[in-house]
């Protein structure tokens, strides 16, 4: 037999029973070519450019999905950060750009489009400042547009002026969108990758080619089943052997991801090229497709209990090693995602009282993102939100890794309340934040200098 029946069955089982899917195929598009700063021209340029390059994205993804039998859950588009595209344009142009993004996303049939972004890790230009202040307008007037702000990097430190602004912006978005849902489309990052395929932080960085396909794999369900099977069948189990099991599975997932990405590229044709596979284990609210459940399968009663951070290290490291062997084009976040509301196991852990925001912050020193999809009471002052952001960015800056904050201050909610955002965004449980004042620290402004680890030359 060309393939062993076990190999064929394993592939089939991974797809049919264990939720192996491609979480996202994201088309990055260079937008730095707008011929004028006139708002009407900008609006039509953005719309036409996205439609021109992206109109076949969904069709191509569908064909590839049928060919390999692996579902591609999301098709998305990431653009050059709009602050660069719009720099120098009148304020009116910012709103029109957001509307053009929304219309184009609708026209090509995708659910999210990212790139309403600014890079302000050292300081903000006039355009960056306008863009950040326009985020509440842009997100409340659209359903598909995602915004992100890179406010810190290891090389530059943390731009605390922008962190202070973003605290206010997040609170305003929460007030102006139903159930604060707009905050799920807004993220503040440190060390934002230029080729990340996952919204809301996706963008098409300035070092990227004209148009590129980046693939985000999924697979917590597959890894979980592999661990469970290994525990059932092997008599001698230690953590090294479990890491090896995860590594092997990560290899297979990544290979499938790259194959599918390259096939989509072949169908889209030039100028689209293949970019990277993002190895992140991205959970979905589906039962069993959960990073928290993997941590529990490693012998921790609930995600968030003592030992969770160590288990997360084992998991993330094994995923990276398996993935790196499988593909030479690894990029994006590439770690484990722990978005609280999108992971049914995390939601259960919060409900059970095992997972607090402080423990989650500790876990983000290992995982690939940060405080992701975390709901907090809506009456928190903006300075406290900024302080939470600053803490998270500090972890990224000091450890030379990406961290991000996607926090949702739900108006009139108390700790323990639940808010359902539906679909992939899942169910939020409002977490308690220690009610002490950090506002003086935030109001000082300025920039926290780059850490010693930045001096690498």
């Amino acid at each position, binding site marked *: *037999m*060309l*393939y062993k*029946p076990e*190999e*064929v*069955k*394993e*592939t*089939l089982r991974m797809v*049919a029973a264990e939720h192996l899917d491609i979480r996202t195929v994201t088309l990055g598009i260079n937008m730095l070519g707008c011929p004028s700063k006139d708002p009407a021209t900008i609006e039509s340029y953005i719309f036409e450019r996205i439609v021109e390059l992206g109109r076949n994205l969904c069709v191509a993804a569908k*064909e590839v999905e*049928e*060919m*390999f*039998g*692996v579902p591609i859950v999301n098709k998305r588009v990431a653009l050059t950060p709009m602050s660069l595209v719009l720099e120098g344009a009148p304020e009116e142009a910012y709103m029109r750009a957001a509307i053009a993004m929304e219309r184009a996303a609708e026209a090509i049939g995708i659910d999210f489009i990212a790139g309403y972004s600014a890079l302000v890790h050292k300081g903000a230009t006039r355009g960056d400042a306008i863009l950040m202040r326009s985020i509440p307008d842009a997100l409340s007037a659209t359903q598909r547009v995602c915004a992100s702000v890179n406010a810190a990097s290891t090389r530059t430190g943390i731009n605390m002026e922008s962190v202070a602004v973003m605290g206010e912006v997040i609170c305003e978005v929460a007030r102006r969108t139903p159930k604060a849902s707009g905050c799920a489309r807004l993220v503040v990052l440190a060390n934002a990758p230029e080729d990340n395929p996952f919204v809301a932080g996706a963008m098409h960085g300035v070092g990227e080619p004209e148009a590129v396909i980046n693939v985000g794999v999924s697979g917590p369900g597959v890894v979980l089943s592999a661990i469970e099977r290994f525990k059932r069948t092997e008599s001698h189990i230690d953590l090294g052997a479990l890491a090896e099991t995860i590594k092997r599975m990560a290899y*297979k997932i990544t*290979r*499938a991801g*790259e*194959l599918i990405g390259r*096939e989509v590229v072949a169908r889209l044709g030039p100028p689209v090229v293949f970019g990277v596979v993002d190895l992140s284990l991205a959970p979905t609210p589906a039962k069993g497709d959960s990073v928290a459940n993997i941590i529990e399968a490693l012998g921790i009663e609930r995600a968030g209990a003592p030992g969770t951070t160590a288990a997360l290290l084992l998991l993330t490291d094994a995923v990276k090693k398996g993935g790196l062997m499988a593909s030479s084009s690894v990029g994006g976040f590439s770690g484990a995602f722990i978005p609280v509301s999108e992971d049914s196991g995390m939601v259960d852990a919060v409900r059970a009282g095992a997972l607090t925001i402080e423990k989650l912050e500790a876990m983000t020193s290992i995982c690939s993102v940060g405080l992701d999809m975390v709901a907090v009471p809506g009456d928190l002052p903006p300075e406290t939100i900024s302080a939470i952001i600053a803490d998270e960015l500090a972890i990224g800056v000091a450890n030379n890794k990406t961290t991000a904050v996607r926090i949702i201050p739900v108006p009139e909610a108390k700790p323990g309340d639940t808010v359902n955002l539906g679909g992939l965004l899942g169910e939020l449980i409002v977490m308690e934040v220690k009610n002490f004042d950090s506002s003086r620290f935030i109001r000082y402004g300025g920039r926290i200098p780059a850490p010693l680890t930045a001096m690498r030359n």
Partner: protein
Amino acid sequence: MVLLWENLMGKKVITEDEVESLSREGILTLRRGMVLTPSAREFASRKGIRIVYGGGSVPSAEDIPRDPTTGNKGVDVRKIVEEVTREVIGKAGTTEQVGSESGASPVFSEDKNIASVLEQAISEEPPRAVVVSTGVNRPGIAAALTSAISECGADIQDISQTIVSDFFSMIFVVNLKTMKEGYTFKSFKEKVEAAGRSVGAETVVFHEAILKAMHRV
């Protein structure tokens, strides 16, 4: 050094610059006594020029490592290899069942030497589909699936089947290169899956590439 010189004596060395002028319609035919430099080979593959070995010589004679003890007598060793290979493949060819890996028709004739057939087999690996079917065993399932496959003109290269109590599981590896005109992967998949369903067998068709990617390093 002497060895190297003797090997090159009387041979025409084709360099990168000459590849394009010597090739016709994207095919570069190498005759006996011609040597391709490594950079020329790379250039040809970059330009999509296919290298065909004509004139009855062995393809990659230059690539076969020489036995240091026999020195330039290496030619004899190569001759032996050539003859043995020819014999083995020739025999297999008569059974009409040459290794499923080759895919191409394994009929040999004087003007189509082993080299060019092998070369073609490697460069043009056929697209293949994997058909997996499971269900409660009953007569006619294999017949329904195989006739659907053959109606498309696809060629079954490998079959594996097991029955555990009343359940069967069947896996086919199918070469799609021979498919009749008008059939695509998509229509093949739809037809075979429907044929499976019509006899109560859960059937899934997917492209071989995904298996290869996941299970072969």
